[in-house]
């Protein structure tokens, strides 16, 4: 009798734990990963420190482009910044920064302190244009090829693993 109860209780517990475990790996956050493989649409972004607009179409001049959304107020951006600086030495890759909902003075101080990896720096003070890229939080980084195709999307700060992956793709 005792054993029967034990088996029933254990089975229920195992079921609950398995479901909870599965729910952990299930991302309940809205994602834009399905954009991978699609072509980027034509979007204009304001230059950070000069008048005029940068047309995303110009990316086709570079072999590979890394589009990085960042801000000085964002802690994880600070963490990943050293990786961007490291990647900026790669001649096959141009990094375009989008300064997201930021204060210009703070952003400049941030770059002065941490280094400037950006080939071109643009801004999106209201965060409205970034929506077109499927950005809802920063940092987020998008790897784009010559044909304007999105190869990879990194939500959250870049890790060492991500950096190696980017280097591998870019070298090819």
């Amino acid at each position, binding site marked *: 009798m005792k054993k029967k109860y034990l088996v029933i209780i254990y089975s229920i517990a195992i079921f609950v734990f398995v479901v909870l*475990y599965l*729910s*952990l790996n299930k991302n309940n956050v809205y994602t834009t990963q399905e954009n991978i493989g699609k072509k980027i649409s034509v979007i204009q972004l304001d230059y950070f420190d000069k008048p005029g607009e940068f047309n995303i179409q110009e990316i086709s001049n570079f072999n590979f482009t890394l589009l990085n959304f960042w801000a000085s*107020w964002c802690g994880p951006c600070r963490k990943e910044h050293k990786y961007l600086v490291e990647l900026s030495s790669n001649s096959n890759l141009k990094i375009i920064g989008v300064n997201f909902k930021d204060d210009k003075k703070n952003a400049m101080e941030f770059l002065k302190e*941490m280094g400037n990896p950006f080939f071109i720096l643009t801004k999106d003070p209201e965060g409205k244009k970034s929506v077109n890229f499927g950005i809802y939080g920063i940092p987020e980084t998008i790897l784009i090829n010559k044909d304007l195709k999105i190869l990879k999307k990194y939500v959250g700060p870049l890790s060492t693993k991500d950096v190696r992956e980017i280097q591998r793709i870019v070298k090819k």
Partner: protein
Amino acid sequence: MLSSFGITVSTISLLLSLSLLYLSYYDLKLSNNKISKKIYKFAFSQILFTFLSFITLIIAYVISDFSLINVYENSHTTKPLFYKISGAWGNHEGSLLLWINILVLFSFLFLILNKDKNKNFKLYTIIFQNLLISSFLIFLLTNSNPFSLLYPTPTEGMGLNPILQDPALAIHPPLLYLGFVGSSIYFSIALAALITKVDSKSLALTIKPWVSVSWTFQTLGILVGSIWAYYELGWGGFWFWDPVENSSLMPWFLMTALLHSVLVLERRIGLYSWVIILSILTFTMSVVGTFLVRSGILNSVHTFANDPSRGLFILSFLALMVFSSIFIFFKHAPVENKNYKIFSKESFILINNWFMVFFLAVVLIGTLYPVFLDTLTGQKISVGPPYYNFILAPFLLPLLFLMTSGPKHKWISSNVIGIFNIALFTSIILFFLIFLSIKEGGLLLLLILLFSMYLITQTTFDFYETFKNKNINLSRIISHFGFGLLILSISLNQIFSVEKSFNVRLGDEKNFQNYTIKFNNLETFSKNNFKSVKGHFEIIDKKKITSQNLTPEIRVYNKPETITYEASINTKLFSDTYLTMSNISNTDVFNIKFQKKPFMNFIWFSVLLISFGGILQFSRFEKRA
């Protein structure tokens, strides 16, 4: 500097905890009946070092040491000192350290306050408690370290979310943690009691004060959280059946059940296994709640950052805890014979337990069902107040009735007590007086009103009895009275609430029911860490010919940039007037929400009374011991 010091101190705490495990296990085999002096010394050092680690973190916050990632991410130099301190536990890592501190505190208090108890019983309790402590310390040091170093050191921090900068919220986590983390000690005691075959009376006496203490703090923690939600979130409600609120309520149901069944166990054998199960379940539910909040599988106002590795640790810990406690329970559970009569006090207390377990099940299913459904079928649903109100409200009727008549019965006897008495008669008269003045509300709500009044009048009569008879349990009377008052106030609040939204421009005047709202002035100003737009409104009550000025605000904080809507609340004894304002972008129109919330003070006060009963219960125990 503080980073490495903090890590060192926490590592020493872990080593001390592991040594305590070893020493206690070794001491079990010795035949003397006194616990070795060494264990006391180690336990004392353990609490010293654990407190020190927490104090180190608080100091890092006070001096704004941004070389700690944790301080950088959650604090700012311009923050008031009070919120710098409370910022230490306003985030995942810091609050985990608070968790550990409370585990250690309860472990230490148990050791020094139970000098006369059976030696092995105490040792096993210390062993189980230190298993919990060391697991959480490992979690802290490997996954969620509040002392992690940030290099290069930034000159300024990111600031604490402004809606968390509130006095009620500053004390909310410590109170709640004293409640549900405190329940760890009777989890350990229960397992130790099973293994060492402690008799029911001493189990009951050992557990009782801890249950009262944790229950009281849990009640106060829930109250403070609810007050914060009412004032700060600007929804005008006090309970939202948010999954995280539910996580604090679930252990509370079990603690309430335990509080009652321990009373039976103290006097009679028969509920031994049940009390053990409840003790194990209470702490299990607390960890389940922690899992739900920290793993990020739920979306709620308590947005701890989503990090699956945390969830995985807590889930593995939980699984280990649940499977081993079930195993220990089945291996050691004694066979019991039930010998109580149907109408005796024991049965009524047991009925209370069934109610609590039922409430727990309803809330647990409501909280977990969306998670399960999403995981298994991919369908997303949300379970809200209609579900809870629909299922729980009818059961309040028998609960209120039994809370009134149950305690009047005697132990072991089976005499049925007449239910038609002066208290019922008084409450029916009162009910009709109220009914004539409202003439609205559904049948169920009216019945709940009647039954809660019956409970209030009966407990008031009981209260007078205590002057004649000193043996009557005053804490029960106060808590039950508080519960009656709570349900009464909530029902009246439901019936009399007025809610109305408008779009207004400066200078507008709106009329509805008996009220006129005038939008007189709009003022903008900036303060240290925020800019504010403040509206000046005049609310005129045409029936009572009174007017009051309310000034809701829209604040834009700069660190981190956040917009908050500050409700303006005019609190009077019987009713709150509540006004919130939000802007509609690119227009000069504001959306205002006017609410009349009666009996809010009574709701807060009644919960205070409920927890006051818990404090009395504890002091009663102190006197007897």
